[in-house]
């Protein structure tokens, strides 16, 4: 089995760039590894009568236990990935039990992030199911003394051609004796044979969620636990100078205070440090915290001011910067062009604001930690808690609850380390629940970015040269304080892979420093990079007085596969398997336009359609959106049509729901969400000033059109987000003539 070494920066990059190493690990783990890491870390599947691989156990009564090693935060991974295994096993869903895995490297990557649960584990789960099925068929053949070719698994039985049959449970102990087949011996079902894949199956947790019985991180309890509320430096990097807890301790229910050490070295997933109030209820802890008097040392980030920082980013992108992609000679073309067009764009920090704030309960005892957390990455919990407490990773047992949203925030387990450190200090299990104010003011923020765009305009208004320059504090700063430029995985997200057919094309990236923790948020760098690219191409269409869809298709060029070089990392997948295919991009654009009624609905004053398309997480998405702008400058979105090509689809309904949600998430980004800092402090604190779309602000209707494809599965959770904001802005430009170049829109149209 392949061990995943904890080298924070590399592990982190590896997950965003490529999970292929982990998949190999998972495969090795699935078929060569028959034990658990430690005696305590044994799943029900491991303990089953037959445990052919880490994801599957079969009991003599026919109960099939499927391990879900990825986290469920609403994207449907718990409901979708196990179906892949059960399908190839030919199990009966009614007899399947799902078991949520604890953090353990034997499962391969558990970092539920980067829209990769299906694409990185599809083959592994198919192989895991098909392997067990062959072994069951061979076991039945041996028992009946007939050729295996006469035996076939069918809905939880192996059936002989004569009609006699044996249940999976009856065969489990015999199948266990069978040699494990080689990969070449595996046979997979054809699409026509599928009973579950491609069907709209209900979600695994549906009934618990509508009955209020789902257990989230905030709901997890441990016997004898106490509650903590933590005061942190309002400016990132401020250190604890002194504090007075007399009044806090006088609050009824408050038990004690504990200091959490200042953050040292690279930010990573370490706790921020601060003063914790420990109490016998959530409420008492919060009230006690209000009475704390804390003084912080001045931080080097105390001058962080979003208005000034915006200007510095814009100045950076007005000057030549590091070239990250170069085709032809942009400067020569600009020099001889009769006409050029340029524009600057800006997008602010965002907070993740999952409806459930981060929460964990942990107990430290005898050098070991047991914790329950709403984490996207239980192995990172093991690493982070182990590092914070100076214990071994194997001594951290992390149970994963349901997650009330994640969006990338819950990949960073600083809050679990807080709970573990506090438990060690007070000698009891400790529950840490962040308030909404904590969540908004101490996030790992989506970064702030400025973009400069310039094009030389040729015949028919088409660009003959295109320059795009961007600057933002990179996610790399969270792992390496000396980081200056964007990481390769950030450039991959819609910056060095713009698939336009332009003879002279240069992409650049300038430096920027971070003053807050920077993290990844649903669709990451694609958000601002797609905003600039998809807005600017529409500006050029407007300038040429051409139809936006027709112009976009023209600039995209003929259907072709673009041979990007080695700098283009394509989410760790080969360009042979997952090409950048402008033909598939054209298809989604044409489909979204058609379904939106593009050809018939011509813009009128205050009402128009807009289009944007973007490939991210290996998925092609086009958004056609209709907006209405009233005389007061308020934007209403009656309809959004999203066309998606995500390759092979397991559950079409969950794909639809993810893109419906992306339409709303993208609308928040376009219309109202933004985080700003002044004197180093975040100015927003709750949903009144960090606004996200409500029902009447969200698109009234989102129609999702999924293209049928047998291409390998691609991402679903994130790729719907990037094209939404530029599509809205393009529609606004068509409806009002006003070009939005800064997000969020808020009152810009008033």
């Amino acid at each position: 089995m392949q061990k995943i070494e904890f080298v924070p920066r590399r592990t982190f990059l590896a997950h965003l760039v490529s999970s292929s190493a982990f998949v190999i690990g998972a495969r090795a783990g699935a078929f060569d590894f028959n034990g658990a890491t430690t005696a305590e870390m044994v799943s029900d599947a491991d303990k089953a009568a037959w445990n052919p691989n880490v994801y599957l156990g079969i009991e003599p009564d026919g109960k099939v236990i499927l391990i879900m090693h990825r986290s469920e935060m609403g994207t449907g991974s718990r409901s979708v990935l196990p179906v892949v295994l059960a399908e190839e096993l030919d199990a009966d869903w009614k007899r399947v039990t799902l078991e949520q895995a604890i953090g353990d490297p034997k499962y391969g990557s558990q970092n539920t992030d980067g829209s990769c649960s299906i694409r990185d584990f599809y083959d592994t789960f198919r192989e895991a199911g098909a392997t067990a099925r062959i072994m069951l068929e061979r076991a039945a053949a041996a028992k009946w003394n007939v050729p295996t070719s006469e035996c076939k698994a069918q809905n939880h039985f192996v059936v002989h051609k004569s009609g006699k049959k044996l249940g999976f449970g009856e065969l489990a102990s015999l199948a266990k004796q069978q040699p494990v087949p080689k990969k070449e011996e595996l046979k997979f079902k054809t699409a026509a044979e599928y009973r579950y894949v491609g069907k709209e199956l209900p979600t695994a947790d549906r009934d618990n969620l509508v009955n209020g019985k789902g257990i989230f991180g905030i709901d997890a309890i441990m016997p004898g636990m106490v509650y903590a509320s933590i005061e942190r430096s309002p400016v990132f990097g401020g250190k604890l100078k002194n504090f007075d807890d007399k009044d806090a301790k006088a609050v009824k229910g408050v038990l004690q205070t504990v200091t959490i050490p200042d953050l040292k070295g690279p930010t990573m997933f370490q706790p921020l440090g601060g003063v914790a109030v420990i109490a016998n209820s959530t409420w008492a802890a919060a009230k006690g915290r209000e009475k704390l008097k804390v003084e912080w040392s001045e931080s080097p980030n105390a001058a962080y001011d979003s208005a000034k920082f915006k200007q510095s980013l814009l100045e950076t992108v007005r000057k030549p910067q590091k070239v990250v992609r170069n085709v032809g000679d942009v400067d020569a073309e600009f020099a001889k062009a009769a006409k050029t067009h340029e524009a600057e764009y800006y997008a602010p920090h965002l907070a993740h604001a999952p409806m459930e704030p981060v929460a964990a309960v942990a107990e430290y005892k005898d050098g070991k930690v047991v914790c329950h957390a709403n984490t996207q990455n239980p192995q990172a919990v093991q690493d982070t808690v182990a590092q914070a407490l100076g214990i071994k990773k194997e001594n951290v047992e992390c149970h994963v609850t349901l997650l009330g949203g994640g969006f990338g925030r819950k990949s960073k387990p600083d809050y679990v380390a807080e709970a573990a450190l506090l438990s060690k200090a007070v000698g009891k299990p400790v529950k840490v629940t962040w308030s909404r104010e904590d969540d908004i003011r101490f996030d790992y923020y989506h970064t702030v970015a400025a973009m400069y765009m310039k094009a030389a305009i040729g015949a028919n208004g088409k660009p003959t040269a295109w320059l795009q320059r961007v600057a933002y504090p990179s996610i790399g700063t969270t792992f390496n304080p000396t980081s200056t430029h964007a990481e390769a995985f950030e450039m991959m997200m819609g910056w060095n892979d713009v698939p336009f057919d332009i003879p002279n094309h240069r992409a650049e990236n300038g430096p920027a420093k971070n003053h807050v923790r920077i993290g990844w948020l649903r669709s990451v760098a694609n958000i601002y990079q797609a905003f600039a690219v998809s807005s600017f191409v529409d500006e050029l269409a407007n300038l040429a007085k051409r139809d936006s869809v027709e112009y976009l298709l023209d600039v995209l060029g003929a259907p072709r596969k673009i041979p990007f070089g080695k700098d283009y990392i394509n989410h760790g997948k080969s360009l042979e398997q997952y090409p950048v295919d402008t033909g598939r991009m054209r298809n989604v654009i044409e489909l979204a336009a058609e379904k939106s009624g593009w050809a018939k609905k011509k813009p009128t004053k205050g009402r128009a359609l807009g289009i944007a398309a973007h490939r991210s997480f290996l998925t092609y998405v086009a958004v056609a959106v209709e907006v209405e702008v009233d005389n007061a400058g308020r934007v209403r979105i009656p309809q959004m049509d999203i066309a998606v090509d995500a390759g092979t689809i397991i559950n079409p309904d969950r794909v639809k729901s993810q893109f419906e949600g992306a339409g709303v998430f993208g609308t928040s980004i376009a219309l109202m969400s933004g985080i700003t800092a002044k004197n180093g402090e975040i100015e927003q604190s709750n949903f009144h000033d960090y606004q996200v779309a409500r029902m009447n602000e969200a698109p009234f209707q989102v129609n999702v059109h999924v293209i049928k494809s047998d291409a390998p599965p691609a991402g679903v959770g994130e790729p719907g987000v990037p094209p939404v904001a530029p599509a809205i802005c393009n529609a606004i430009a068509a409806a009002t003539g006003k070009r939005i170049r800064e997000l969020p829109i808020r009152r810009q149209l008033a």
Partner: protein
Amino acid sequence: MIKLKVNGVTRQHDGDPDMPLLWYLRDELDLKGAKFGCGMGLCGACTVHLNGKPVRSCSTPVSAAANAQVTTIEGLSTDGTHPVQVAWQELDVPQCGYCQAGQIMSACALLAKNPKPNDADIDTAMNGNLCRCGTYLRVRAAIHKAAELTASNATKPATKPAAKSASGAGANLLPRNGGKK
């Protein structure tokens, strides 16, 4: 001492009367269905019924519930067969599911007052319930569906739940509509 009825059971609270009803329900009574989202009545995740009216329990002190009837998602039905829950199941509304108890409690309160709401009525009534996953479309559709179910149940002699509540995960994953589509 504060006396109140929660889901039909009489309870008494001897602690801080200012404690929000939400934390009383969650920490003291171990009713975890109502969720914390903001602490300021801005997001609706904590919505429960106080004498049948929807309230944000995060910003309602326990003292405000003295001698009152409180209904939480756990008290809505014993088996998930309230028409609103059935409609929610049929349309598979939840994504992460965290805000859904609050959405359902707001939806029930709306339908109790207005059995056949139009889109505008729904938008107005549900505006205080945030969903970061963006399930609003299905929430609206499910409210219309629940209104239909309630109306058709009222005309039938015996009511029958439209979606069966299932126990195990596998049982939940049976194809909807008999697998057709």
